[in-house]
């Protein structure tokens, strides 16, 4: 078991009558990148602020490196923070921004020059030290903020939606760059985001949050493929829901005599009402009447809506029993798709989630 660098023990935070964080327990392990993922208002930013010390918990303890820092102000916690708006000091050069933390630590002047240079090189801002923050592009400001937070080698790096202010293209570039920089530094990182792609691609572990609590905590693949709760299944990747009744330990009747084979976490009891989730990309759309691979369930469907997304097309389908589900077809589609068209759906047993 890896060592916990940051721990929240039973942390609760109320704002007036709103409980932003509710009896939260969380351990961030040495060297890992842990994402706090959730919709706005789920308490993820408050959780980050509890760790940073910007917000005091109404109840509970905050432990950093085995020390109880609950009562310590932010400036005595020695953490690095990157803000969503970057919060670079507008009246200082990039160099002075990055040097800020070192000056507060009374590092020798020659040492400051060397370490700021290294930090700027790390984020590829060599030669930009004399410029003012407002003279930099959004991506460069983001990197300057990262350099400022990393230069004094903090124990933990906290990132509050660091990519949210960038446009889409730049965001993807910065995401790859951020991952490289963080891997190179190897620093324990807590990353707040509402963007599941960001969380899935950057994290060692993801804590999916909802209403001040953690719904699920685990590696990206676990969270995506085996969502623990309905909320997680809905929030990450999106999924269609199908109601049915178990007709065997691994068979579910969806109504009107349509039965699918499933492979869920536990055997079902015959007659049990179940709700199944299925990810759109796990639904294969095939021409009607064809024979499917062995082990897959085939059911007939009718296309009710097509949404062209560029690389993919989202297909809304009506199936027997008045239920509906979504499929994603990679473009160019191997078969013609048209609203009202009849298709056959091939569903592998392990495509289903039990909600």
């Amino acid at each position: 078991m890896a060592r916990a660098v940051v721990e929240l023990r039973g942390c609760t935070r109320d704002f007036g009558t709103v409980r932003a964080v509710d009896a939260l327990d969380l351990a961030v392990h040495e060297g890992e990148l842990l994402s706090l993922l959730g919709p706005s208002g789920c308490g993820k930013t408050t959780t980050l602020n509890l760790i940073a010390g910007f917000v005091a918990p109404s109840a509970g303890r905050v432990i950093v490196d085995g020390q109880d820092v609950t009562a310590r102000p932010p400036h005595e916690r020695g953490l690095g923070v990157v803000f969503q708006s970057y919060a670079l000091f507008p009246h200082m050069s990039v160099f002075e921004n990055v040097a800020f933390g070192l000056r507060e630590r009374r590092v020798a002047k020659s040492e400051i020059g060397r370490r700021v240079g290294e930090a700027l090189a790390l984020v590829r801002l060599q030669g930009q030290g004399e410029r003012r923050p407002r003279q930099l592009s959004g991506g460069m400001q983001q990197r300057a903020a990262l350099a400022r937070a990393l230069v004094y080698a903090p124990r933990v790096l906290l990132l509050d939606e660091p990519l949210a202010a960038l446009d889409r293209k730049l965001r993807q570039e910065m995401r790859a760059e951020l991952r490289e920089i963080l891997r190179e530094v190897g620093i324990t990182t807590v990353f707040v985001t509402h963007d599941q792609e960001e969380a899935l691609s950057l994290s060692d572990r993801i804590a999916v949050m909802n209403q001040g609590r953690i719904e699920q905590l685990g590696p990206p693949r676990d969270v995506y493929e085996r969502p623990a709760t309905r909320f997680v299944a809905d929030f990450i990747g999106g999924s269609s829901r199908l109601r049915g009744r178990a007709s065997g330990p691994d068979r579910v009747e969806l109504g009107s005599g349509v039965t699918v084979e499933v492979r869920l976490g536990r055997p079902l009891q015959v007659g049990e009402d179940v709700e199944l989730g299925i990810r759109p990309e796990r639904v294969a759309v095939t021409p009607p009447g064809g024979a499917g691979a062995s082990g897959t369930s085939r059911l007939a469907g009718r296309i009710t809506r097509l949404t062209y997304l560029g690389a993919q097309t989202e297909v809304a389908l009506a199936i027997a029993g008045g239920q509906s589900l979504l499929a994603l077809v990679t473009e160019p589609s191997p078969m013609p798709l048209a609203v009202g068209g009849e298709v056959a759906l091939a569903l592998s047993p392990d495509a289903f989630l039990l909600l």
Partner: protein
Amino acid sequence: MIGRAAVIALVAFMTLPTVVVIVVSVNPTAILSFPPTGFSLRWYVNALTYPQFQRAAVNSLIVTAAASLLAMPIGTAAALALERGRLRGRHVWATLLLSPLVVPGVAAGLGFLILAAGLGLLRSRAVLIVAHVALVMPFVVRSVWVSVKNLDPMLARAASSLGATPWRSFRRVTLPLLAPGLTAGLLFAVIVSANEFVVSLFVSNRVTEILPVAMFSYVVNYTDPTIAAMSSLFIGLTFAAVWLADRFFGLAAVFLLDLDR
């Protein structure tokens, strides 16, 4: 065309009294008259050597400096509290602090006079200083508030995350970013205090009176252009102060900001 003419007329109308005073001040004749009959600096010599003006100038320096220096930190703290603090009835406080002198000067002066008399402080400059602090406060608060509104609250958080104590964060981040508002506030405070007359008339005597009061007394007793020379000096000093402040801090940037943004 009409617009330009109107602007020229307005500017002429606004500057005319100043021009008249300056012209009269260099007129050698011993009565306040217009137009002038020659050129002389004798009234300037007179003004600068008149003992009561000298004493009043010293008083003015002391009162204005003390009132401004007191008003700056108080006004800055008030502006920060109004914008950032969890203040009950913030709106009421803001209105009270910002309404510049809805109270007529005569009433305020009378109030200060009664208070000072009650406290037995009529012979001291302290009352004058306190009155001036109160009078310049709206200008200081308003000027600083503009800068506070433009200050990103995340910057203080950033500073503290980087290891700065609240005081260090204030000194290295908040204060430098408030500099334009502080400069404007200080300038307003100095100008308003230096020119204050009505309230000062009530709470000063021959020993403590400041220049505008001394100048008024002079006009009551004499009618020579010494007073015009004194006024011209006053105008010149104020102009110099504004020019210097603009030169070093760019006042346009401060005054053009919208307070309610």
